């Protein structure tokens, strides 16, 4: 691979490089107390115990994996274990399951099914924060905070992956919320988000948005603005509208803001609120002055405080009961910025007009004694209609099937 990605430009990096890149965060204070990253942090004792949750750098042994629960009639099994830091899931035309990773492993794996036994190969190594992957027309696309790379005809060369072709290296490159989620849309364009390089700030227009571009990296357009950090989206199977999950800011309170499921009905024309309005419910204590939430698109559904919804898929498989047709499976990675931990794969049911009518927990059992024993990241439908769910905490992939 092309070696280490430039991950130095977080907020400070962005400030230092501001001459070059033109980045100006709204709150570049001169005293440390005013730095953007520290804004809004509480001093309460319970809050002082909160910090991002890291996983042990060794996958959980198969017999120690969480005993997950599913609704009656469904079955959950471990599809693959020993997959350190398993994040995004994509499947190739020939059946290969590609799995990305994020902070810990810095690898992309290829898993092939050899008569019920899974064979794991590392096809990309030491590529920092390469969370975003997509498979399209024989090629695997891999996104880092700075670049999108393409590995052509990948399934024919899993043992000696091809030299990556550079699609673009024009992404801002910040480590903070710089990891990507990648999809090729029904329009054949590559959809790429760029998160806000902060917990809460008002960054320039290269951030806090979803973009799309041609497969060669040209023709970049803004699809949605005011998106703090989306790490999962999918296209409605009928309307082709893009729906996305969005992670709201930290440190406001235990129960606010509430993370969002959003629906884009007018690509390029809609603003989803960040940093002015959160959850469609409240203006930001710092950036919300002079604004009202009515200026922005309301969420299609609320997914829980600090719940960190990540991957999502509309279900179009043939295996699950009829009521799941067109419903959305959403992984909720679970909060770190909240004293009460919770994580699951939820299912959102929609009516004929595309309105969310209810959200129910679907795959549960990731938390024991208020501690994570697993954390779901991405969800993908398999050709037989079963779904796969990745878990970056336990380093495993689960399969949920129905019947038999």
């Amino acid at each position: 691979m092309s070696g280490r990605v430039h991950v130095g430009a977080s907020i400070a990096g962005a400030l230092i490089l501001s001459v070059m890149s033109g980045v100006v965060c709204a709150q570049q204070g001169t005293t440390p107390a005013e730095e953007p990253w520290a804004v809004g942090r509480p001093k309460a004792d319970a809050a002082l115990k909160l910090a991002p949750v890291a996983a042990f750098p060794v996958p959980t042994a198969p017999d120690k994996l969480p005993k997950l629960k599913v609704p009656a009639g469904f079955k959950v099994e471990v599809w693959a274990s020993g997959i350190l830091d398993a994040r995004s899931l994509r499947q190739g035309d020939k059946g290969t399951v590609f799995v990305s990773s994020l902070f810990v492993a810095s690898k992309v794996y290829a898993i092939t099914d050899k008569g019920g036994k899974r064979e794991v190969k590392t096809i990309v190594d030491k590529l920092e924060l390469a969370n975003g992957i997509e498979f399209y027309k024989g090629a695997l696309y891999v996104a880092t905070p700075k670049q999108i790379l393409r590995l052509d005809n990948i399934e024919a060369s899993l043992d000696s992956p091809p030299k990556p072709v550079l699609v673009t290296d024009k992404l801002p490159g910040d480590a903070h919320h710089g990891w990507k989620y990648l999809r090729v849309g029904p329009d054949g364009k590559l959809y790429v988000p760029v998160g806000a390089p902060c917990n809460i700030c008002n960054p320039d227009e290269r951030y806090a948005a979803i973009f799309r571009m041609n497969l060669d990296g040209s023709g970049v357009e803004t699809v949605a603005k005011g998106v703090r950090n989306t790490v999962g989206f999918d296209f409605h199977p009928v309307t082709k509208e893009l729906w996305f999950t969005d992670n709201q800011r930290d440190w406001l309170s235990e129960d606010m803001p509430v993370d969002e499921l959003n629906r884009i009905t007018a690509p390029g024309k809609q603003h989803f609120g960040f940093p002015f309005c959160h959850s469609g419910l409240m203006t930001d204590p710092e950036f919300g002055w002079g604004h009202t939430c009515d200026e922005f698109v309301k969420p299609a559904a609320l997914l829980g405080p600090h719940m960190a919804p990540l991957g999502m898929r509309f279900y179009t498989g043939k295996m699950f009961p009829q009521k799941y047709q067109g419903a959305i499976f959403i992984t909720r990675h679970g909060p770190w910025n909240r004293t009460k931990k919770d994580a699951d794969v939820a299912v959102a049911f929609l009516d004929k007009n595309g309105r969310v009518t209810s959200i129910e927990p679907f795959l549960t059992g990731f938390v024991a004694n208020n501690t994570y024993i697993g954390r779901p990241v991405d969800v993908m439908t398999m050709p037989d209609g079963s779904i796969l769910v990745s878990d970056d905490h336990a380093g495993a992939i689960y399969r949920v099937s129905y019947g038999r």
Partner: protein
Amino acid sequence: MVASETPFRNVHPKARRHTLLRRVLLTVAAAMIAGAAQAQDMTARWQEMCAACHGPAGRSEQADVPSIGAQPVLFTAIQLFLFREGRRTGTPLADAMTEVAKQLNDSDLRSFADFVATLPPPPPEDGPVDEAKFRRGMDVARARRCEVCHNPDYSGREQMARLAGQREDYLTKALADYKAGRRVGAQAAMLEAVAGLSDEQLGELAYMLSRWRKQ
């Protein structure tokens, strides 16, 4: 640098580095032999593989080599993992540590991390304290809320390192590496935590943490 703390204080810097490197190489050789004998108890493996550089009780007397006594289990495991995977490289010491870590299997990561956590925490750096500088370091730490993750006594927890009593030269280097993006932790949190701090402020922070005492 805290040259007075090193056993090589009267030696020319270049010779000192050579001696240090030779010692590291011997450790690597010892590690390769030790790797074959899985069943050894952890104290023996520690003495053989780690103690020469990190100190018999986990307090380092070597420039640029961290004290690792009483580091949280998850922190040590992740660092060993990053070294083993070749993701903390770029200096002779880091490269030497990579060679050591390559001898470790997954279960070793856990055993060594567990063992290191049982070693005593390193005491504060010796000598008189420049109170004004110490206070400036405290101001930086408070402004950046270092204690939110690293605990009010800087003892560390989970993936977040113990900082109290760490060598000043090592802290200075580590903070500079985070700031420059040369080092990424188990999460991206440190990148933003040191964002915008001057070298002088990083130095004051390192000065304070290396001498931290219960206030």
